[in-house]
């Protein structure tokens, strides 16, 4: 079977790995090719801070909560592995802050040591009267993506540095299954009114004395619109921009100022931090993740497509659960092909 994965962000690479690990012995030959015009460190996954934290409430989307938990549990198994840092995985604890009492999030039992903040802790954050503390995981794209690519390369996966202009070109070339992990640009291959950019801008600063993530939340303005500070393995990511519908991938000075001022107000010690980088990225926002099959026929040529895109600002958080589901869907394709083959006898 020939499989083409489009997209080499965390979704594309992890989907490829999952399919390979699960089916390389039962499907022979299993040829997997990855097509992308951007590879690490230039993907959206690379720019993200890498904190595992879903949106606060799943609004009934229990499927996504399950995939988020699966990802956390999977990453946690690596925490005592000497290679954990090569993968970009490490634990970090921190604060979620609110201006009013807030119901516990849907992920409260997925993270470690979830609790509410004490009055003394809240004293650190004037203006915030309620909050949570928990230990979560960091998963840094700039390390994780190269690690995924190494695992894939070891197993013979070939990478093409090329933009796919249409599903048809792959179908015509004889690909059996396409795994569509094109993130924000999925609309270029197949129009999707539900997919919109959620533009974010972040600064990377040197503040190695900061050892906790601090995320402020505003129920009225929505996720990522208020300051957040996330220390990484080398630099600290600060942000708080979410502009729905803005396609610009350029940093702008207004957002830069807003992030810098609001984060310095939240944590005064940041005033001494040196700004090292400034980056803007487009979160692939959708009402829910598109993770489903579609059959494409162009005349005699036919392929199965597994769509896996629209992960908003929680791609790293949810990636493994989605990759497993993509592999499940792949398994169904394999099963159907087998049944068809046997039914022809």
């Amino acid at each position, binding site marked *: 079977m020939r499989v083409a994965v489009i997209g080499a962000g965390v979704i594309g690479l992890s989907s490829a790995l999952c399919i390979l690990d699960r089916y390389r012995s039962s499907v022979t030959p299993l040829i997997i090719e990855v097509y992308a015009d951007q590879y690490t460190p230039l993907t959206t996954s690379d720019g993200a801070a890498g904190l595992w934290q879903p949106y606060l409430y799943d609004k009934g989307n229990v499927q996504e909560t399950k995939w988020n938990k699966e990802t956390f549990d999977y990453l946690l198994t690596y925490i005592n592995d000497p*290679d954990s*840092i090569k993968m970009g995985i490490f634990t970090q*604890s921190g604060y979620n802050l609110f201006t009013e009492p807030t119901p516990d999030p849907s992920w409260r039992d997925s993270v470690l040591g979830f609790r509410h903040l004490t009055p003394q802790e809240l004293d650190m954050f004037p203006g915030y009267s309620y909050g949570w503390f928990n230990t979560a995981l960091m998963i840094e794209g700039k390390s994780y993506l190269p690690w995924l690519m190494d695992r894939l390369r070891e197993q013979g996966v070939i990478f093409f540095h090329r933009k796919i202009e249409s599903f048809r070109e792959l179908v015509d070339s004889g690909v059996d299954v396409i795994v569509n992990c094109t993130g924000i640009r999925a609309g270029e291959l197949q129009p999707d009114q539900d997919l919109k950019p959620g533009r974010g801008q972040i600064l990377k600063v040197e503040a190695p004395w900061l050892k*906790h993530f601090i995320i402020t939340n505003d129920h009225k303005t929505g996720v990522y619109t208020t300051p957040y500070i996330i220390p990484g393995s080398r630099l600290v990511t600060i942000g708080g921009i979410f502009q729905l519908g803005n396609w610009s991938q350029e940093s702008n000075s207004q957002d830069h100022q807003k992030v810098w001022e609001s984060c310095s107000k939240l944590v005064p*010690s940041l005033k*001494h931090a040196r700004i090292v980088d400034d980056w803007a990225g487009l979160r692939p926002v959708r009402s829910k993740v598109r993770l489903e099959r579609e059959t494409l026929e162009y005349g005699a040529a036919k392929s199965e497509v597994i769509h896996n895109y629209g992960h908003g600002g929680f791609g790293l958080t949810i990636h493994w659960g989605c990759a497993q589901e993509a592999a499940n869907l792949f398994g169904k394709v394999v099963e159907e092909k087998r049944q068809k083959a046997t039914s022809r006898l």
Partner: protein
Amino acid sequence: MGRVRVAVVGAGVVGLSTALCIAECIPHCSVTVLADKFSPDTGSDGAAGFVYVNKFPDTPVDRQKRWLKDTFDHLFSISNSSEAPDAGVYLISGWQVFRDPPSEKRPYWSDVVLGFRFMSDAELEKFPKHKFGQAFTSLKCECPLYLPWLEKRFKNANGQVQRGRVTDFGQLCGNYDIIVNCTGLGSLSLAGDTDLHPVRGQILKVQAPWLKHFIRDGDGLTYIFPGISSVTLGGTRQKDDCRLTADPKDRSDMFERCCALEPSLKKSQVLTEWVGLRPTRGGLRLEKEMFQHGSRQVPIIHNYGHGGGGISLHWGTALEATQLVKECIGNRYLASNL
């Protein structure tokens, strides 16, 4: 009544903080710090600076707790200010893990630190050899930054600094009205204190910037304290051992113990190592003594014997020592008016 001349002997964390407290809190005082060693060569400099303290067997618990709380509150307000990186003070969360549950699961300092609770089973899975743990948030205070920061504040309060070794309190009696003794192990000779003894501690500093949590084994021997520019691994507790050079056997042993707690350390780069001698005593000596010098009697306020808790208790003991100095001045004023 003229200015009261106060000599503070010792420029480690106890000496500088005490001198600063006196200079800032007591008017009409001129304060001079005298020491042969200043940062980065003091016993305080190599310490990880984690605010945590074992019990002194001979000091009442509520007195220790007050010292700890005063220090915690003082450092906590610095950590929330823009001074934090200059002072080397910041919050850190983590875990203290025990192979076997301790007899005292909730120690006296549990309400001084932030968010103290017992670890969940899920959290303990990271430490397969440990059956019980405590999770909390405390503070770090890095002396190579903090001591110069204190010294700057001290000089801004008109404090004077003099380099030189004091071998006898008598040397100071001609020029000073009150002596404050913050000499740590120096009090072995200066104060002839036979209760005081060194407990050797060796540590290792590695590059592991992905580590954000402290991990301390309840046995007090193995610990991992992430810092601003390195992670401190430790350690040893060797009573009456004065060797100031690093022992390669101690080093490899502590590295192995730390890697067992945090496997990712195997990939860390070793930077430096250091040895410090904890000035240990059954009880911390914080009291006034009248020193006879010829016909005069000069008050000495002793403030030493902090063991491994110098940083953790420094501000609390500085406040109490300052109070004792105030009382001396009060008595002197009364005496001079009789």
